[in-house]
């Protein structure tokens, strides 16, 4: 617990300069939630793909866009990309474990309240969603998407430690990312006759307990894996800057 407290203390130095970014996220929350709430009746009828794309963007990347540019993942030398503040902390006698935890805390402080607020607004102002998902099933649906945000989003803090990124590597990552999203968006309706969000509504309705438990376990495993990866990676990487 002490390590998490120390990590939180450390993360405050970055969060001090993130107030504007958190306000930006709150500002974006209104149009995002409005679109998702207003479009849910027609989505439940037609499963149009734009809705799925929007959902993926909100739970996948929206939270990280708002960060101040000084604290974003960026090119710091030739082919080296990293989050500069993490590189700076690495020079101090702060146990790596604490640096790593602070990176994850910052991401969760940005993303979780934002994701949670989107879901709560959708449910509060969308009668169709309330009709489709009773409270327990809605909790399961929320856990599935919060877990997606954690599983996918953990890549961001893990990558703060830095990496050697060549143009070829960058193109490969972009191809894999876009390719997997595209495959997901097309494969799910083809195989299940649901959209991506529709499929998670169906899963949450049919198996609320199982889907909740799997979502929580997946989030825990993902965070543990990426934190360990980041710590080991920092121990191997060369910081020439």
């Amino acid at each position, binding site marked *: 617990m002490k390590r998490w407290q120390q990590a939180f203390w450390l993360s405050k130095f970055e969060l001090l300069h993130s107030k504007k970014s958190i306000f930006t996220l709150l500002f974006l929350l209104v149009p995002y939630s409005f679109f998702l709430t207003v479009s849910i009746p027609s989505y439940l009828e037609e499963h149009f793909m734009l809705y799925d794309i929007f959902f993926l963007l909100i739970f996948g990347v929206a939270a990280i866009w708002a960060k101040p540019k000084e604290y974003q993942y960026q090119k710091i030398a030739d082919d080296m990309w990293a989050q500069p*503040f993490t590189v700076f902390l690495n*020079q101090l006698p702060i146990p790596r474990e604490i640096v790593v935890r602070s990176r994850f805390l910052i991401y969760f402080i940005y993303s979780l309240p934002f994701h949670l607020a989107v879901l709560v607004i959708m449910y509060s102002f969308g009668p169709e969603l309330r009709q489709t998902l009773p409270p327990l099933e809605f909790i399961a649906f929320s856990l599935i998407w919060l877990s997606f945000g954690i599983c996918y989003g953990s890549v961001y803090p893990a990558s703060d430690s830095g990496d050697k990124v060549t143009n070829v590597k960058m193109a490969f990552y972009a191809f894999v990312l876009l390719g997997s999203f595209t495959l997901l968006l097309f494969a799910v309706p083809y195989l299940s006759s649901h959209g991506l969000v529709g499929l998670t509504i169906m899963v949450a309705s049919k198996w609320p307990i199982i889907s909740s438990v799997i979502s929580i376990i997946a989030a825990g495993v993902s965070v543990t894996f990426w934190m360990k990866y980041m710590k080991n990676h920092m121990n191997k*990487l060369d910081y020439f*800057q």
Partner: protein
Amino acid sequence: MKLCTQIERVEKTVDDFTVGPINLEIELGTITALIGNNGAGKSTLIKMMMNLVKPDNGQLVHFGGSIKTSEHWKQEVAYQPQSVLGCDLLTGNQLRDLMAPWYKKWDQEMFMNLVKTFEIDLHKRFGKMSKGMQQKLNLVLALSKNTKLLILDEPTANMDIPSKQKLMNILVDWMERDERAIVIATHHVDDIKKLADYIVIMNDGKLLGKYEKEELVYRYKRYWFEDALGIEKIPGEIDRLNDRLLISNDVEQTDTFLKKNELKIMQSEVLEMEEIITYMLSGR
């Protein structure tokens, strides 16, 4: 004297450039100047000493412990890099608040005195400070960590002349307070002349040698002769001008030869440190 750092057969290859293999020992109570041309590998060596760059071979030990296997040594090593990344939005006060709790021997009194000496505005964001002021703040933070080993990478590069002078005095004073060591990578001869006990010369990734400063000063000499020498090569000779001016890097051998051959010296003098370093870096 006690050792604070041992570098054994350390080697690092990046693209087609190799630093090392390097063997070097740093003793407590000494100031070691690391010198070499741009791209000689000084900063890479320093970064390896901080475990920021991982050696391909060899081992680095600070205060008896390998830097690979533990992080405890960081308590005793303060490092001032050439440029600092990632803290542009933090003020001087915030940087102090961030760093101080992690150093058990943090000296707050020294920090405040040095801030006053260098007239640093602690309320200003690091990114808004001039390069010189950033460097001063970095130095103040590094010194206040109160560690046993201080590693400085070009500490005076952006500093004004009065601040450089103040820094020299501060570093001398800092050394006297405890059993400590400083490793300083620099291009400035004044830093070397005033501070260094030992000079470590690097060229093209290789460590050419570690020399006692005083020994080095008396190793090189310039001779003027009444008559043209007319001799092909004199022992110790590394340079000759108009056959009447000769530079030697082995005074003993040269003096013996000149005496034996009754060559009349008009005048002789030791070389300036800058000249010595220039000759050494050109392999002479």
